[in-house]
């Protein structure tokens, strides 16, 4: 008997009590299907007053429903000496002798199992990084953590617990520069402040299958532990550097590297090392990987090539981890903005006397591009080489969208950094750039009414990586968001508080946006 139970259940725990209890749970408490729900609704009424609500309880020893608020079930208990009743709404068991709800271990176990069964039947879907969610929607119930007895004891003896409140430094930590490694530090800061990634690692979800000590995911996990340890001195990420150099040879070497390249390489290595978390399913299928990196960062880019003659469209979808955007001021011509076109005030950006916005860059990215006569594509409709236009749109948006502003120009004529200021918003709506929007536009629905209730494509900024300096040498810093609307500037080992204005006025090189509303798969 657990401390929260009571001795009076012993009278109940006789004969076939487990099965009886299960039946009660299945029929009257947790409804798995529409029929059971209907049956529950029809049959569960108070035997004395006929009410449906009023906290209906069912007697555990016989078939009797009584409402709690009007004490009908209490009367029944007194008369029949049936001491236990079950609440039909939440499944709690009430003991009339103790006059309180009790939690008996065995009965709780049965309750949990029945609830799980019912949820499965209902087809409820569960949080993202639960790999057992398959296409049919059957999933495991997500249960919150409850401490075991031993854990409770430990916790009681160690009262100095750290709670992460809004004014708390836990979760923030500086990173020592190991010698031109500011590019690595800024990406690490952005990754450690990605909410989903943080939750994944802090809940210990990585199961390592690599034999040697060189798993980068384990090192990331360790990194999160360091960040949340409460230490104030900056962390020295030397092991991380060593591992990255070992696994991404093209980045190895003591010289300044590009942060964007590092991001892609790091995601790639993490993705490769994540195989263990897939539960073995689809481990080697690159198109269908279910590792945490793919779940968070991978999106689908749709490329439509339209033949100019027969207007046949051939579509391909490529996965991407980031979106590289051209900037005005580069030697490639920047597409002129459509005059007052849709979305000119979308995303709350204002066109301040011609300042380029992120939305402009995105619009340029998704514009139809005429491929020219030198690049004719073989059209399967016409069976000949024809001129065509190509257009990119977003087929599937990742949970974390990373925008890379191409500030480093490496053309034949010159190599330089493009310092054009690009204003980016705190909240971004990607709807106009989706493949589905493009389809509806092509179908004649030119007026894109902003669907207020469609929250799928809304993103919030949470990290900005900036570069100061020239093409040859410079320094990277990051702004990251913690605790909703608190921004911090991470400059290697020094973390300081920053204002939203600082963030939005900064030049911007890599912009990280996180989906606002997470849809369970």
């Amino acid at each position, binding site marked *: 008997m657990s*401390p*929260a139970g009571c001795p009076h259940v012993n009278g109940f725990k006789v004969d076939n009590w487990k099965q009886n209890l299960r039946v009660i749970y299945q029929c009257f408490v947790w409804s798995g299907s529409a029929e059971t729900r209907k049956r529950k609704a029809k049959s569960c*009424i108070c035997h004395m007053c006929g009410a*449906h*609500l009023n*906290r209906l309880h069912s007697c555990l020893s016989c078939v009797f429903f009584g409402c709690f608020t009007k004490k009908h079930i209490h009367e029944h208990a007194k008369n029949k000496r049936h001491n236990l009743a079950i609440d039909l*709404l*939440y499944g*709690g068991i009430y003991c009339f002798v103790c006059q309180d*709800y*009790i*939690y008996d271990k065995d009965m709780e176990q049965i309750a949990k199992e029945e609830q799980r069964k019912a949820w499965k039947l209902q087809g409820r879907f569960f949080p993202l990084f639960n790999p057992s969610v398959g296409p049919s929607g059957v999933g495991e119930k997500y249960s919150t953590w*409850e*401490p075991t007895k031993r854990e*409770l004891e430990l*916790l009681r003896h160690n*009262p*100095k*617990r*750290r*709670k992460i*409140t809004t*004014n*708390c*430094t836990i979760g*923030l930590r*500086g990173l*020592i*520069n*190991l*010698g*031109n*490694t*500011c*590019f690595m530090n800024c990406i690490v800061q952005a990754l450690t402040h990605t909410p989903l990634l943080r939750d994944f690692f802090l809940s210990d979800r990585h199961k390592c299958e690599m034999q040697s000590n060189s798993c980068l995911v384990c090192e990331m996990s360790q990194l999160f532990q360091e960040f949340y340890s409460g230490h*104030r*001195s*900056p962390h*020295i990420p*030397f092991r991380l*550097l*060593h591992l990255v*150099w070992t696994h991404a*040879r093209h980045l*190895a*070497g*003591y*010289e*300044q590297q590009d942060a964007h390249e590092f991001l892609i390489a790091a995601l790639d290595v993490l993705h490769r090392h994540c195989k263990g978390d897939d539960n073995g399913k689809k481990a080697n299928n690159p198109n269908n990987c279910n590792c945490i990196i793919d779940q968070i960062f991978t999106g689908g880019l749709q490329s439509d090539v339209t033949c100019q003659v027969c207007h046949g469209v051939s579509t391909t979808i490529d996965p991407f981890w980031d979106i590289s955007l051209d900037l005005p001021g580069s030697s490639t011509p920047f597409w002129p903005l459509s005059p007052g076109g849709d979305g000119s005030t979308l995303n709350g950006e204002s066109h301040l006397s011609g300042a380029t916005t992120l939305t402009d860059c995105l619009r340029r990215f998704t514009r139809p591009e005429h491929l020219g006569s030198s690049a004719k594509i073989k059209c399967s409709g016409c069976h000949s080489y024809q001129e065509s236009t190509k257009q990119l749109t977003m087929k599937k948006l990742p949970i974390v969208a990373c925008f890379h502003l191409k500030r480093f120009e490496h053309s034949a004529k010159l190599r330089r950094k493009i310092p054009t200021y690009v204003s980016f918003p705190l909240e971004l709506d990607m709807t106009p750039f989706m493949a589905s929007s493009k389809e509806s536009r092509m179908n004649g629905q030119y007026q894109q009414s902003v669907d207020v209730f469609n929250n799928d494509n809304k993103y919030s900024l949470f990290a900005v990586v900036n570069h100061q*300096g020239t093409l*040859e*040498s*410079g*320094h*990277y810093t990051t702004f990251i968001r913690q605790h909703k609307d608190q921004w*911090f500037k991470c400059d290697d080992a*020094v*973390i*300081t*508080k920053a204002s939203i204005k600082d963030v939005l006025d900064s030049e911007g090189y890599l912009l990280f946006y996180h989906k606002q509303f997470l849809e369970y798969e």
Partner: protein
Amino acid sequence: MKMEDMSLSGLDNTKLEALAQDIYSDLVEDACLGLCFEVHRAVKQGYFFLDDTDQESMKDFEIVDQPGVDIFGQVYNQWKNKECVCPNCNRSIAASRFAPHLEKCLGMGRNSSRIANRRIASSNNMNNKSESDQEDNDDVNDNDWSYGSEKKAKKRKSDKNPNSPRRSKSVKHKNGELSNSVNADPYKYNYNTGINYETLGPDELRSLLTTQCGVISEHTKKMCTRSQRCPQHTDEQRRAVRVFLLGPSASSLPDADTMVESDCYDASDGQVLMSRLQWDGSSDISPSDSASSKASTNNSDSKKPKKKKKTSLGLNSTGGGGGGSGSGGGSSSQSSLVGLSNRKKKPKLPVPPAPSIYDNLN
């Protein structure tokens, strides 16, 4: 409310609204009940207290938002002395120098394999002066600043791992090791840290020799830049060098007692040494020399061994302790600008004249 098969079409708006209101309030009530049950269960099962935290210790973690300090309330730039252990060679390395070290350690740098190969080659070709000169030139022209300061950092370590991949087996050099055999085996000296005496004038040589060991390595034909108590060479050797370079009159070295005890060579050592020599009066540096030398010791440029790209290597690190460590220190604060900005700032010292041939002292 009894459940019957009521048809809603017969009801007007107010009744519909009342119904909706009822349903809504029932839902809210049920939700609140659920919350009550959760709390009740937590209290009964005994884990309700988990939400409480120790208020005092929470204060330690409050964010600080003041100029000049970071969010932890710490002053900037106090992290210069952080160290870490290299996973490859298990040596303790200063954190801000870890990346260049790792590059060499893993053999990935532009120059790592070339330097390693050359070391192996030159240890087999000791007597071929021109070859080693050429290789030196080759190396220096690459402008590999990082390699130079890495050597400097290495020199200061007391425990060197003789098995590190950077060394070829034949070149073993232990700092601080007093060895009688040093005399017999000059080839073991780390040939990269030395001064080419041929390019220095007599005054410069004299001032140099008052503060440095100066023994010329037969292998590289360069002068030892370590202190007068350099364990690699004996006093005998030092005397001989002075005789050779400065003439018989300049053969006496300052006494061991008056020497500054330190293996670590930097500008301050030299200055202390100079003042001691003058105080003791035992130096045979003439007053004019001492005045000029003293003047020159204050000027770190002339005290620094003359470094010219074509004739000497990595001297920045050893002779000019002040200058070398200055730029090294600067690097750790201006982290990412380090490699390249320092490359550009490498001081170019004037070319001294008049080489002369060195006989075999040993």
